[in-house]
């Protein structure tokens, strides 16, 4: 019963254990903060990656899937599925004219999605991805005064949903990062800079109906290229998925337009052997329109894997039903030739490296555990050295070696628990306010803080002088270091005009992830405790081996 009493007293009546507690707390907090930010970043990447794709993606590139409307009906009848939307995916060339002449011409290779805005909105909240739209009141209040979105002129939700201008001309929605004249500010808002040679009021591309030319090349079922098809489009909006790769490469047009340009729309089928009375090939039926991709949203509570399996079943049934219907001129592709994946499987090439990066950080920062064990070991070694006589007394009154060992192990355990718990709290406090801290770093220090820092420096200097007058080396050293550190802080504050660590224009997300990764918190806390005990075990074993006679002579 003496072990817990002594462990508690050693912890509460001395300063040195608090150094150990602080060391453990800082180590634990460091790991949790870094891994939490990385986990939050990964979650933001995952959430952004999922945008526009729903939960499950059915894909048959280039030639597409006929009767996709039937397939969508089959899928939407599934209890696991909430909605489905057809897409035509391809690549094309986008020509953007900024100024006059060839010097103002910009040609980009882009990923083209032909979409049905209404159904895509049900699957992937398309309308919420349109950048030039009316913000919610709360968001409006938080916006910078010069944010263009404050101006109702820029609220172009309807055009984006129509994928056409108000007068019916075909419209196109660009990824927000495609135009090189779009500038993302530190506040995360986009503003348009002037293109060289452009008219003063030119605003590329939003919202003044900038024109672009899209060139697509259809590919036949036999794999041969058809003639290129060019068409003028008016930029009616821009979208922001949150994922740079998508926003810098993808454009959206309406599904019928994409189908028509790629010759995936409905068309008459002709015989190669039969001809009509005019000598032209005889029309024997109609080839149905096609979609290369169908995105599916799961009902709430249904996980993507379950939905994927259900969709695979639905496709097999769809294929069998259509194939057996001899009145239909074409068959859908065999199930094995159609890719049906969850959004995570589809984006694994992108999410995988970020996940690996997080695990790498977690592994590298695990070295902190060894530092933690080393600190506890060093501090406990000194405590055991100092407590040699106490150990001798305990052995003299009948304490066993195991009992002595357990005092210090328990002591280490207590330090581990208290230090790790403080570390978790500290990490939580930092993570919860990380954006405020960041904002604070990003703004110039207020005058009162600069004055206060210099006053504190002067105060510490006075204490150093007092230590010198009293010939106290300890006070001189402690307050001397304090004065030097505070002088550096004061000088930095004087020069500090604000700097951004997390630049939204680099990291793409406007806010630093600020949610604690509780799984990491608990595992790190457990690690902190275990390594504190490991660190304490060697000095504890040394204490247990202490010869009582020798230690009692130590006076």
């Amino acid at each position, binding site marked *: 019963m003496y072990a817990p009493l002594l462990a508690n007293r050693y912890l509460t009546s001395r300063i040195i254990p608090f150094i150990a507690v602080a060391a453990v707390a800082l180590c634990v907090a460091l790991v949790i903060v870094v891994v939490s930010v990385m986990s939050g970043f990964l979650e933001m990447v995952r959430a952004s990656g999922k945008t526009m794709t729903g939960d499950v993606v059915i894909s048959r590139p280039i030639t597409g899937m006929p009767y996709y409307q039937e397939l969508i009906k089959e899928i939407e009848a599934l209890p696991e599925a909430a909605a489905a939307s057809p897409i035509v995916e391809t690549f094309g060339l986008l020509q953007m004219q900024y100024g006059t002449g060839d010097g103002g011409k910009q040609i980009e290779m882009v990923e083209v999605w032909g979409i049905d805005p209404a159904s895509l909105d049900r699957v992937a909240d398309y309308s919420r991805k349109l950048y030039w739209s009316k913000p919610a009141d709360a968001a409006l209040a938080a916006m910078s005064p010069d944010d263009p979105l404050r101006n109702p002129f820029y609220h172009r939700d309807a055009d984006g949903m129509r994928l056409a201008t108000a007068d019916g001309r075909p419209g196109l929605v660009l990824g927000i990062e495609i135009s090189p004249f779009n500038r993302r500010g530190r506040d995360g808002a986009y503003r348009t800079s002037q293109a060289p040679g452009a008219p003063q009021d030119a605003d590329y591309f939003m919202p003044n109906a900038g024109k672009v030319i899209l060139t697509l090349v259809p590919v036949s079922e036999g794999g041969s290229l058809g003639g290129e098809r060019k068409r003028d489009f008016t930029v009616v909006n821009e979208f922001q998925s949150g994922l740079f790769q998508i926003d810098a490469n993808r454009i959206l047009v309406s599904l019928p337009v994409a189908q028509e340009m790629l010759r995936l729309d409905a068309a008459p089928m002709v015989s190669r052997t039969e001809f009509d009375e005019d000598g032209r090939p005889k029309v024997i039926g109609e080839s149905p329109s096609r979609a290369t991709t169908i995105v599916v949203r799961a009902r709430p509570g249904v996980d993507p894997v379950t939905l994927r399996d259900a969709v695979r079943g639905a496709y097999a049934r769809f294929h069998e039903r259509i194939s057996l219907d001899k009145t239909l001129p074409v068959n859908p592709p065999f199930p094995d030739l159609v890719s049906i994946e969850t959004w995570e499987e589809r984006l694994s090439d992108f999410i995988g490296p970020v996940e690996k990066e997080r695990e790498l950080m977690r592994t590298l920062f695990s070295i902190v555990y060894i530092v933690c064990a080393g600190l506890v070991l060093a501090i406990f070694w000194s405590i055991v050295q100092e407590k040699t006589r106490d150990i001798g*007394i305990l052995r*003299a009154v009948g304490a066993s070696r195991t009992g002595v060992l357990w005092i210090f192990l328990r002591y280490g355990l207590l330090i581990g628990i208290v230090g790790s718990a403080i570390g978790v709290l500290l990490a939580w406090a930092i993570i919860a306010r990380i954006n405020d801290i960041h904002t604070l770093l990003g703004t110039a220090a207020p005058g009162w803080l600069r004055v206060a820092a210099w006053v504190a420096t002067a105060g510490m200097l006075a204490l150093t002088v007092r230590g010198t007058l009293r010939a106290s080396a300890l006070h001189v050293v402690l307050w001397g270091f304090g004065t030097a550190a505070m002088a550096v802080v004061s000088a930095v504050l004087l020069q500090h005009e604000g700097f951004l660590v997390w630049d939204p224009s680099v990291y793409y997300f406007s806010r630093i992830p600020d949610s604690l990764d509780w799984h990491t918190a608990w595992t790190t806390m457990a690690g902190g405790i275990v390594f504190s005990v490991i660190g304490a075990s060697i000095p504890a074993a040394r204490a247990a081996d202490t010869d009582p006679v020798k230690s*009692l002579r130590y006076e």
Partner: protein
Amino acid sequence: MTMLLEAEHVKKTYRLGRVDVPVLRGASITVDEGEWVAIVGSSGSGKSTLLHLLGGLDRPDADSGPVRFAGEELNRFGARRENLYRNRDVGFVFQFYHLLPELTVLENAMLPALVGLSRVRWISDRAALRKRAAELLETCGLSHRLGHRPAELSGGERQRVAIARALINKPRVLLADEPTGNLDIHTGGGILDLLAERHAEGLTMVMVTHDAAVAARAQRRVRIVDGRVE
């Protein structure tokens, strides 16, 4: 009278660096139950070493004679019995008190009892143990100091706490190593009076001292010269 403690031609050699230093060269002593024996001798004669061997704090050389307690050879004790012997059968009082600075007077006095107590028994026996320790400290004149830390006590008070601690488990023998060596004559006299009271109640005592006046309070004196009993 029954013989309680016996050392028979015990030898103890310490190794200092590469040199073997024989401290006890075949010392013998017997202590009867209820007896108060003073071991006297000059500094370095081996009297404290003999006390440590009697108390099971140290073990004699391999070629040494045995140390016996109530007929049992201490050398044959396993670790558990040896701990129990130090906890229950003997009580130690040291020259420099050796109190634990983090514990209060009451807790210091209770320490040997706590060592032998499981958590379950602590819950059931806590009140009784506190009461016994408080009574013991009261007999030592420290009832007003129970919540104090050792650093707040005078030398004499500290030694009284050490005596209370040595007696908390009602040992059969008290081993005292220069119990007044660090105290002035008046305070030392008080400590000896306290020990004499315990002896009068039947406690066996072995006391190491180099002070003839202190040794005179014992019933019997044993002199050690160069590691042997004269």
